[in-house]
């Protein structure tokens, strides 16, 4: 019994310290993450998110391929694969228009990897997935509509 009480106390302490760490992390992101695009990640509209990553005003490009299901039953895990044959891609980002926080992820692509990223994202509702790629000073984007049956994201 006594052991359990100790464990309980320990757990409560651990949880609260995580909370403090999170708060500290949010206040001083630069010291923790040098390159993490804070403004874009916290942007609540697609326009702001695109601007925050410096990816606004991209031209539509079919050569930027998005592989995602046309209909996703569980919005919590929507598999997305982005690939392209456009030369010189240095960055790619995946946005979901219908999410409260549209930017799901951004990737730095070096010369040492192929422009290919496959991951799973959360989607709040049926929406367009927007993928933007940066090659040199040019921006390319492509979209794909995914129908979501059960929401998997309530994020702010």
């Amino acid at each position, binding site marked *: 019994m006594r052991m359990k009480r100790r464990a309980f106390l320990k757990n409560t302490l651990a949880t609260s310290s995580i909370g403090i760490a999170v708060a500290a992390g949010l206040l001083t992101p630069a010291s923790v993450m040098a*390159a993490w695009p804070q403004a874009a990640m916290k942007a609540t509209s697609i326009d702001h998110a695109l601007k925050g990553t410096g990816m606004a005003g991209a031209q539509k490009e079919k050569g930027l391929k998005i592989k995602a299901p046309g209909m996703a039953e569980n919005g919590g*895990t929507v598999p997305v694969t982005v690939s392209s044959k456009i030369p010189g891609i240095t960055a790619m980002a995946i946005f979901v228009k219908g999410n409260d926080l549209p*930017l799901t*992820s951004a990737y730095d692509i070096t010369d040492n990897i*192929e422009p290919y*990223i496959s*991951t799973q994202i*959360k989607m709040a509702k049926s929406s367009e997935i927007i993928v933007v790629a940066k090659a040199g000073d040019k921006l390319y984007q492509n979209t794909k509509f995914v129908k979501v049956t059960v929401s998997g994201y309530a994020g702010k």
Partner: protein
Amino acid sequence: MANQSIKVRAKAKKGVAKVKCLINHPMETGLRTDSKTGNKVPAQYIQEVVCEHKGKDVMTAHWSTGISKNPYLSFRVKDAVKGDTLKLRWTENSGKKDSTSITIN
């Protein structure tokens, strides 16, 4: 616990290694409420995943809470042959880190 959070497989074919990794992580958005206590579950998510090959960071992923829990990530590393070492590391919003290294098959 720390060493088991990342599972990676990498297979080289014609100089390109296909890397697949699964990270065991809750990816909490900070909005979910704990049904027992009624308190908000604090946000806890991976912000950065970095892959290192031949001493160079070849891929950096910046993630928000919009990535699914127990995240899956796959990418392809060029100029990789069997026997090369790949290092993967992630950093959480709280500053917590973990890393692993594997040999390409």
